[in-house]
């Protein structure tokens, strides 16, 4: 029998045994025993954030850029409730995360004790799974299970709520074992019958398209590799969701750019007109499909997803394949090669001709300005001056996020971290903190909006404390631009509460935090300023003053179909949106 240790020591040992090197957290009464243990060891580094929401987004950035599980440690009550936004964000975007929350001692649960909150109740709907550990002898098993559940199948956040008396109680530590979970057994390999049926469709397609998503990234670098091989082998066009950017190199000529509400003309029209759609790790989200009844009406659809509940949820598909992307792609490639499939060259040539026609529309073109900085131009210059395999981009939510997705280009997976499903303003700064922790030598840039950046600006202090040289590149249009754009298009230009009033001086703000502030106001000074930002050793706020009322195009208005896009030239047109469409978000 091994020596008994206390609950807090069990937590630390379980973290070590699950390969954890970094945790993001904030102390409080109900987690003091764990903080005490953290203090007395050196294997695990704790990054002290400034708000628990920041800890969760930092863990997300860490996880998404490294493929590891993000770990969060917060106290009971307000610590736990502050973590809810990031947990929900991680659930929506399938990010592996283990969040340890302190709880009031077991005998006080239910007594409305100081800093008590029903954490498992509150987080039930925003976690993949959660646990309240009432017996110290369950703690080691639960900790290991939490990591297993968070990182396998469709990844997601798991909360482990530990009452303070359990952290003090003495108990047995169990090593992680490879025992199969009784009920939770995600399916990894796809059914061969379905894979063969998919290859039948792919082999005879005349207007095929690959539609890929975040599942490719989550499946690991191997999945991106296999995807590249498959796409090259077929010669078929490929597009991706916001979450999937980087899984296929944007420099390649088969790449059509992102699809969806602010996707490219060619990607969306190809989706609309295709005859075979190969969905790999995407979930037919409403930002992608637009009006469901008009979504790609004439195509046969293949859908590869590790989560059976993603299949036929929004769009009925013809060939569902439940499994992990890398495993399924490996089997698909093998079948494709062994059956010596040769794509219909003639049909493919005319499909590409059609696509090239749409490409010729040059949907990302915008009117240049030599006096003021256009936001699109700012992202283009940022890309040219910072691109490289060691550059990581995070974003906030709004127009800048879409411009970043459109004009920054990604060649590799795990370089692009954004809040897709939940659309959480305030994600980018803490996410950048997490990315920088995972990649100390990387160039980590948050492409931000001024309104979003204000939501979690305090995490700049975290960056300064931990010497994390993140760059916060604010496209400052003095508006909640995306809100203003919708108000312009849908609400008669009445800009209700969307002006960013009383903004701080971002350069001074940076200095107040002990960081560096840089401002650019004209296209002429932009390049030099960006170069200065890159050369700066510590964290930077870059206040990039851009034109205020630019709209983000292309755009599929709510309730419209893919072939009903608004393009930049349509600027100033009255947009007709149905009442049904107006009710959508």
């Amino acid at each position, binding site marked *: 029998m091994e020596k008994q240790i206390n609950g807090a020591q069990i937590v630390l040992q379980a973290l070590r045994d699950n390969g954890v090197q970094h945790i993001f957290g904030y102390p409080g009464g109900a987690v003091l025993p764990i903080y005490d243990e953290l203090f007395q060891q050196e294997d695990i580094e704790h990054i002290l954030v400034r708000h628990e929401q920041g800890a969760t987004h930092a863990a997300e950035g860490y996880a998404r850029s490294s493929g590891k599980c993000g770990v969060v440690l917060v106290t009971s009550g307000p610590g736990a409730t502050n973590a809810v936004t990031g947990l929900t964000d991680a659930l929506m975007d399938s990010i592996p995360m283990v969040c340890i929350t302190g709880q009031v001692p077991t005998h006080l649960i239910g007594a409305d004790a100081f800093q008590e909150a029903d954490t*498992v109740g509150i987080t*039930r*709907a925003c976690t993949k799974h959660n646990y309240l550990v009432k017996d110290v002898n369950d703690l080691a098993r639960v900790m290991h299970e939490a990591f297993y559940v968070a990182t396998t199948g469709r990844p997601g956040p798991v909360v482990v709520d530990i009452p303070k008396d359990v952290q003090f109680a003495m108990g047995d530590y169990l090593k992680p074992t490879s025992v199969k979970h*009784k*009920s939770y057994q995600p399916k990894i390999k796809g059914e061969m019958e379905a894979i063969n049926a998919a290859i039948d469709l792919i082999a005879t397609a005349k207007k095929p398209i690959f539609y890929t998503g975040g599942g490719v990234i989550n499946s690991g670098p191997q999945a991106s590799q296999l995807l590249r091989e498959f796409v090259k082998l077929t010669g078929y066009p490929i597009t991706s969701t916001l979450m999937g950017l980087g899984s296929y190199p944007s420099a390649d000529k088969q790449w059509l750019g992102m699809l969806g509400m602010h996707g490219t003309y060619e990607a969306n029209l190809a989706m609309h007109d295709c005859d075979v759609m190969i969905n790999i790790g995407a979930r037919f989200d409403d930002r992608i499909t637009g009006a469901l009844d008009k979504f790609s009406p004439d195509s046969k659809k293949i859908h590869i997803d590790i*989560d059976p*509940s993603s299949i*036929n949820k929004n769009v*009925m598909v013809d060939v569902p394949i439940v499994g992990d992307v890398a495993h399924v792609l490996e089997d698909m490639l093998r079948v494709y090669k062994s059956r010596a499939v040769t794509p219909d060259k003639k049909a493919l040539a005319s499909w590409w001709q059609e696509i090239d026609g749409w490409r010729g529309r040059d949907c990302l073109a915008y009117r240049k300005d030599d006096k003021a900085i256009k936001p699109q131009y700012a992202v283009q210059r940022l890309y040219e001056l910072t691109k490289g395999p060691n550059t990581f981009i995070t974003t906030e939510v709004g127009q800048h996020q879409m411009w970043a997705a459109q004009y920054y280009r990604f060649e590799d997976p795990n370089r692009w971290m954004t809040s897709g499903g939940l659309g959480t303003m305030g994600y980018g700064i803490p996410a950048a903190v997490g990315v920088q922790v995972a990649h100390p030598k990387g160039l980590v840039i948050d492409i931000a909006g001024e309104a979003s950046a204000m939501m979690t600006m305090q995490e700049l202090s975290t960056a300064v404390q931990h010497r994390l040289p993140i760059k916060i590149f604010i496209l400052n249009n003095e508006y909640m631009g995306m809100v203003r754009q919708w108000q312009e298009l849908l609400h008669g230009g009445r800009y209700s509460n969307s002006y960013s009033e009383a903004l701080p001086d971002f350069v001074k703000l940076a200095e107040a935090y002990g960081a560096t502030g840089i401002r650019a106001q004209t296209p002429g000074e932009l390049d030099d300023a960006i170069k200065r930002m890159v050369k700066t050793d510590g964290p930077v706020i870059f206040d990039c003053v851009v034109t205020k009322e630019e709209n983000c195009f292309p755009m599929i208005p709510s309730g419209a179909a893919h072939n009903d896009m608004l393009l930049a030239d349509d600027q100033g047109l009255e947009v007709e949106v149905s009442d049904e469409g107006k009710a959508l978000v």
Partner: protein
Amino acid sequence: MDEQAIATHTISVLVDNEAGVLARVIGLFSGRGYNIESLTVAEIDQTDHMSRITIVTNGTPQVIEQIKAQLGRLVPVHRVVDLTVECESVERELALVKVAGKGDARVEALRLSEAFRARVVDATPESFIFEITGNSEKIDAFIDLMTPLGLQEASRTGVAALSRGPEAM
């Protein structure tokens, strides 16, 4: 099969009998806007601590497929079977029905209860409590008949169901 037709399904779910598992299932239904017509739950295996949750719900075929997949995704869920489509099944519900009255109404209530094979489990000079088992339609019919005869209140267990034949799910 009509893709838009709404039908009633009985879904049987085997779960670990652990804290919060029922809240997970119910939260899933309320959070995603699915209907619950009835729900029963009790531990059925003391050694392995397993419970069976039987849910009667309704929806289009696509919604029912989603419900099954969403239930299957919950970590403590072992198995999900749609007893309405995947097999033949037996469904039973138990109800206690209190009827108060005197004279002809009382005699008529007792006579009807015999026809329905209900049992009297409590009696006073002016009331009965009947225990009745059967499928939900039978219980609906019995309660309807009791309404004019002095129905006071009823308590129903919700549906318990098993697939027919020798195999367990």
